[in-house]
């Protein structure tokens, strides 16, 4: 009898067993992939994709490759992706209908953001008081208006000079008219006298009234002369008054250009509103996401399609899937830069309320951007609790713009910042303290829109302290649905100080410029007026002299006129007279 094994029977059976095992492994991989996708979708409410899943019986582990989790609000954006996820299963736990991973590992993890992007349709939280923002905008408007307005006409000396020039012009025109009238009257009178002298008898009455007329005209000329002298005297008086009024110009200008006081915190809120509001929205969005991903509340008795599962007092009760420790390695985006990190995710349970510890995430980055992030999500007690701790001593920030470009914008040059975030969400009550310190920041102010006043901007540049350190502290309070914040920062007070200093410098320069310009203008106007006055006086003096001469001539030419006697009028020369 042959003792050799029957290979023709053994080999096919062994091969069949191997093929069956491989088939089971393949099918188990498919099942695990489906389970992972479904579980991920249920947990994150987002599209989850697993490229490949493998069950390794020898290692007693599950290996998921090409894991991708999309952003629930923007499905085209990948929130998280991982190259390999190794989950060694504790076989003992399977006997208790649990899948427990004691030490797992995810490598090649790429985190776009810790929380999904906020839906643009969602209303933004109003973190800051709109009345305060409005008061700052009004203040900026007044600031720009102060330096944009032409104040020259409002100066007392200029206004007085302008008024006097106008008054003098009208008086001058009036004097001219009077002089012309006198001249015309004298001329007319002279012509009338000449005409009357051709026939004195007929114009006897005229000649009788002529002295009175001449006297009246003389009086008019005297009055005119007096008015002329008065105008000349008033010019001197007004000049003295204007010179005296110049002393008030400077005070008036200083009063008009005086800047209203503004609270530094209000301006800080105005400048930081956009940046801080966006970050706080992101922070609150993260807590909303944790509440959605790990819903709080007591564990309800799972209702299956048939019957209910009853859990017994004192019985062992745990989550279906528990990852005790998961080592994470990958890169994440911080301040727009990819940063390598490593960390641990521990006590991640499919039903966190059934696990007696909080889910903890601890991430650390090394290198120039050193950051330590800790997240704890506790659902073990009746009150849900989340905690976020971030500590970063060296955060490299790119250039930032604070404020709005059309009003006041402050550009901060790239800088190094230290950040400390400590936020606690207990139940619905939010509390937190966020501190942010930027050291050696170069600040560039920009006054936008119509308020871009060059002298003020130049003064603002000169006033700002270069490479100053800024610290910002935000205290969070309120509830998750209506959070509030209190912001205190020296950014606002620094900018206010700089603006006040700049406005002071700009005001001094403007006051000096305007007073000089006003003096020049007043001097020119007065000089011009004097020239005009002297010309007019000369002209009017000539005029009155000619009128007076004319009157004198008339007076001498016609005096004395007596009534003609009959002898003078009617005596005829004898015919034999030698003169006939």
């Amino acid at each position, binding site marked *: 009898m042959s003792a050799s094994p029957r290979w023709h029977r053994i080999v096919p059976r062994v091969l069949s067993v191997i093929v069956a095992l491989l088939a089971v492994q393949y099918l188990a991989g498919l099942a695990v992939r489906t389970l992972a996708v479904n579980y991920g979708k249920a947990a994150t409410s987002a599209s989850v994709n697993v490229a490949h899943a493998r069950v390794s019986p020898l290692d007693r582990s599950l290996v998921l490759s090409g894991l991708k989790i999309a952003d629930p609000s923007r499905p085209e954006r990948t929130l998280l992706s991982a190259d390999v996820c190794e989950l060694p299963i504790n076989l*003992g736990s399977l*006997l*208790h*209908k*649990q899948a427990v991973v004691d030490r797992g590992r995810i490598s090649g993890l790429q985190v776009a953001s810790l929380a999904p992007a906020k839906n643009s349709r969602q209303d933004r939280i109003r973190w800051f008081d709109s009345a305060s923002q409005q008061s700052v905008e009004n203040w900026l408007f007044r600031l720009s208006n102060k330096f944009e307005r032409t104040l020259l006409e409002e100066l007392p000396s200029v206004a007085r000079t302008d008024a006097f020039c106008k008054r003098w012009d009208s008086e001058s025109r009036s004097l001219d008219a009077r002089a012309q009238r006198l001249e015309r009257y004298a001329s007319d009178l002279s012509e009338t006298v000449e005409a009357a002298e051709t026939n004195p008898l007929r114009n006897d009455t005229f000649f009788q009234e002529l002295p009175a007329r001449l006297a009246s005209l003389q009086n008019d000329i005297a009055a005119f002369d007096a008015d002329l002298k008065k105008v000349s005297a008033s010019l001197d008086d007004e000049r003295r008054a204007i010179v005296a009024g110049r002393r008030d110009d400077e005070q008036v200008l200083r009063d008009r250009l005086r800047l209203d006081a503004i609270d530094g915190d209000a301006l800080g809120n105005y400048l930081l509103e956009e940046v801080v509001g966006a970050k706080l929205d992101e922070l609150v969005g993260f807590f909303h996401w944790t509440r959605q991903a790990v819903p709080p509340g007591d564990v309800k008795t799972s209702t*299956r399609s*048939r*019957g*209910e*599962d*009853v*859990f*017994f*007092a*004192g*019985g*062992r009760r745990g989550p279906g899937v528990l990852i005790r420790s998961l080592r994470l390695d990958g890169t994440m985006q911080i301040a727009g830069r990819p940063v390598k990190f490593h960390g641990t995710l521990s006590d991640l349970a499919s039903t966190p309320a059934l696990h007696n510890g909080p889910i903890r995430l601890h991430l650390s980055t090394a290198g120039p951007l050193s950051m330590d992030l800790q997240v704890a999500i506790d659902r073990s007690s009746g009150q849900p609790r989340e905690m976020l701790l971030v500590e970063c001593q060296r955060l490299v920030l790119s250039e930032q713009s604070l404020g709005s470009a059309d009003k006041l914008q402050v550009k901060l040059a790239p800088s190094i910042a230290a950040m400390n975030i400590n936020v606690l969400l207990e139940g619905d009550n939010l509390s937190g303290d966020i501190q942010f310190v930027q050291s050696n920041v170069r600040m560039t102010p920009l006054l936008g829109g119509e308020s871009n006043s060059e002298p003020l901007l130049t003064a603002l540049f000169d006033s700002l302290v270069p490479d100053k350190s800024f610290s910002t502290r935000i205290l969070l309070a309120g509830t998750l649905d209506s959070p509030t914040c209190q912001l205190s920062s020296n950014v606002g007070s620094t900018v206010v100080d700089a603006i006040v200093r700049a406005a002071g410098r700009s005001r001094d320069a403007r006051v000096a410029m305007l007073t000089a310009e006003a003096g020049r203008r007043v001097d020119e106007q007065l000089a011009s007026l004097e020239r005009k006055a002297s010309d007019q006086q000369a002209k009017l003096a000539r005029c009155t002299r000619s009128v007076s001469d004319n009157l004198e001539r008339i007076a001498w030419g016609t005096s004395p006129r007596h009534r003609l006697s009959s002898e003078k009028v009617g005596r005829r020369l004898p015919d034999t007279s030698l003169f006939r």
Partner: protein
Amino acid sequence: MLFDFVAILRQVVRYFVANSAPGHLAAGFTIGMAIGLAPKGNLIALSLCVVLFSIRCNRGLGLAAATMFSFVGTWTDPFAHKLGDLALSFEPLQATYASVFSLPLGPWIGFNNTVVTGAVLTTLYVAYPVFWIMRQFFTAVESLASSRRPGCIPQVTLESTP
């Protein structure tokens, strides 16, 4: 048409009952009923399947009964739920339940499900009556079949003898 249906039914019945004693048929039917009534996906249902395929009984009839009673199960579930809830809420046994549940494979048994426990208790209660009735029924059917077979002496089996 009707004759064709009757012929098919006769063939199916013959397939199930051929070469099987009424006791085997009744046992298969009873186990199948237990499998059908209880929710699947637990060790109780799996154990019943193992029993069905392990003991000497009619497996075909058992599977047919399991399929049939799976549909019937939806009607009996409310009753099974109430019964199971009553049993699982029994205070003196809570510690026992908890210790059994904490044992390895304890959660896989599925006894903490009200319908599973109710169905098991219902099955235990009706198992012997069903077995007895079905044995009587199959004995009668077999006798009827033997008497109608021309020239054939009715086969007397050990199980069918009183």
